[in-house]
């Protein structure tokens, strides 16, 4: 697989202010005893 260039984040200037929030219909489902699949496995 193709190697991705390391971005070295500290070397890149970051915005003075960062704030991100997204929303969707809440479907929160399970507990950490099982990894919930984000999508149904295709049969």
């Amino acid at each position, binding site marked *: 697989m193709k190697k991705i260039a390391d971005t070295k984040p500290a070397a890149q200037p970051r915005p003075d202010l960062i704030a991100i929030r997204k929303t969707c219909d809440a479907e929160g489902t399970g507990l950490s005893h099982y990894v919930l699949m984000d999508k149904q*496995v295709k049969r």
Partner: protein
Amino acid sequence: MSVAARTPVEGGSARSPLSPVDIGHATHVAVVEPDTAFWGLVRKDLLAETLAGGQLLDTFHANADGFRQEMDLLRFGLKPSAVYFNPTERCNLNCTYCYIPERMRHDGKHMDRATLLDALDRLHRYFRGHMPEGRLPQVIFHGAEPLLNRDAVFAGIEAYADRFRFGVQTNATLLDDSAVKFLVGHGIGIGLSLDGPSPEVADRTRRNWAGAGAGAYDHVIRAIERLDGYPGYNVICTMTTENLAHLDEMVAFLHARRVPACMLNVTRCTLPGARVVRGEDDAVADAYLAALETTHRLYRETGRKLVVANFANILIAILAPTARRLMCDISPCGGGRSFFALAPDGDLYPCSEFIGLPAFSGGNLFRQPVAEVLDSPAFRLVSGRKVEDVEGCNTCAIRHFCGSPCPAEAHEMNGGMNQKGAFCRFYERQVHYALRLIADGRHDDFLWDGWDEGTVPTCMIGGA
């Protein structure tokens, strides 16, 4: 860390709704409005003016009502969409930290096939009453070891494949070729449990009844080989004193075997046996964060991700609170409100963690409507546990990124529902790390591709 999350940093304004949180970043500090889980990351020298006014506060005030409604719906408005279904009390392993009492695992009963099918029918009828069109409820066969009752489980999957999304969490000892063929053929999610990259480490905690040195490692490796290329499987590793030194090696091991996702879970300390191998918070956090960095390095080197799902869930809780999948890290937790657990005798519990604690049985699937059980005092004790009522959490700025897990261990280990759980400092460091990744613009590397499909931005400042 120079400043605790729950303590405002110097320069904070008593009138600002935003609480500064030192996340240990070189250039940025977090500011959080705790009740709505609204946050920003601001250059440290601009903190005072950010708290006084400007774009971030304007954005907050313009959207605050919507953010509150969003959190209220997430915290109090959900109905169950999943069941952790224990088809047997028995297990062929005797893992150190198991939350199911040894007596049940050793001498317990199976749910017979007819009863299991009856249970699925009752669950189907319950979920049909409130699940939206086109969305299937999830049934996760869990344990104890569910494949000890394989015939009944597989019959249930066959009969109800069009009415539930099924998953199985297994120790892999019985996951032979035919079982894999059946589960993969039906598109079933498969979770494996493995605690180390070698039998010497893995079998310290996950061992059979004969004792240490006779565990499940070899079985899990064969299962991983059988499942290679199947996108619907994953591995759960429980972090204990027995494997912390090997966690970094563990994620490299899983990545090398192309495991698509894993979880690195803390030991839930509900039962005393688990507390014996409980790692100290900072030791767990050190090993965990180092392992996360290793997954990132491997992604950069290979272009292939090993998503650590429990950490991804924390990141998502910060970036898009309603998009989270796992409901341990929100308050009230999902126990008894977005999922519940079914024991082989039909008794219902808010969460698998409570199976083995009879006082937390809210009723029985075969004798009462599920809705009545959800409203029982036992369930209300869990579903009513709010972080605002937990001493020390009620003033913490990051309380809705952590949720003060877990009610079972708070109750059993620390003396009540209004106590903290076992890993406060670990969760705090995890949240700080997640915010540092966002400050560095690295967070997408830790999330599965397409994680935000179906989401809509409500705030996007400097993070595009």
